[in-house]
């Protein structure tokens, strides 16, 4: 088994249902009729032996790392920047979003090799958003930091484009 970097397919349909709100809140009709609600986005780490990919529909503890100071479910992602959309032509454009800060797991010991982070929406029943892979790592009484790519049309963490 192996993990595969991908957009979670279920996320695409859920977007059209308005089930995810990344960044600053604007929707007032889901949790409250009077004020917008912001979704909490989280990041969980997975073992290199796990199977997390486009077919993943929600956070799962199966295959997740375990270790000192790591809490099941991972950490909360700083979600303070609203998605942006830009036209690239009269018929095409890109919508994109990147967390506004690095994702950090502080003073953890993760002895079994891991290579994947799953971004998911903990407010909306832990619905999966995207899967990101990197070289296999372990951490010993140290900090694991994931620095986000630049929030641009070509490098943002999540990009949805028409061509």
């Amino acid at each position: 088994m192996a993990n595969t970097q991908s957009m979670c397919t279920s996320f695409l349909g859920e977007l059209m249902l308005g089930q995810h709100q990344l960044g600053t809140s604007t929707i007032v009709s889901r949790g409250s009729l009077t004020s917008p609600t912001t979704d909490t986005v989280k990041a969980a780490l997975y073992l290199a032996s796990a199977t997390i990919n486009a077919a993943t529909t929600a956070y799962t503890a199966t295959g997740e790392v375990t270790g000192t100071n790591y809490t099941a479910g991972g950490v909360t992602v700083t979600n303070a920047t609203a998605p942006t959309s830009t036209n690239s032509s009269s018929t095409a454009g890109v919508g994109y979003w990147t967390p506004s800060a690095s994702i950090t797991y502080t003073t953890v010991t993760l002895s079994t090799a891991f290579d994947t982070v799953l971004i998911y929406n903990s407010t909306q029943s832990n619905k999966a958003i995207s899967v990101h892979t990197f070289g296999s790592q372990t951490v010993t009484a140290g900090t694991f930091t994931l620095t986000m790519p630049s929030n641009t049309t070509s490098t943002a963490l999540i990009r949805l484009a028409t061509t």
Partner: protein
Amino acid sequence: MLVSTIHGEMDDSLLEKKEGSLDNDIEFTTWTEYWLNDELVHRSVHVTLKTSPFTALEAASIG
């Protein structure tokens, strides 16, 4: 400088420091290890992601 280790905080002067990096199309990663004799007592990793999943969308023609 004090370093968190599996034996608690230790002064880095007592430890051997090793560093490494990986740079490819997907990521730029650096790691720092501290060793006490032949035992790994600390390892921190910093991954900077370069690429991300990309999804293309399409509006169907009507008529």
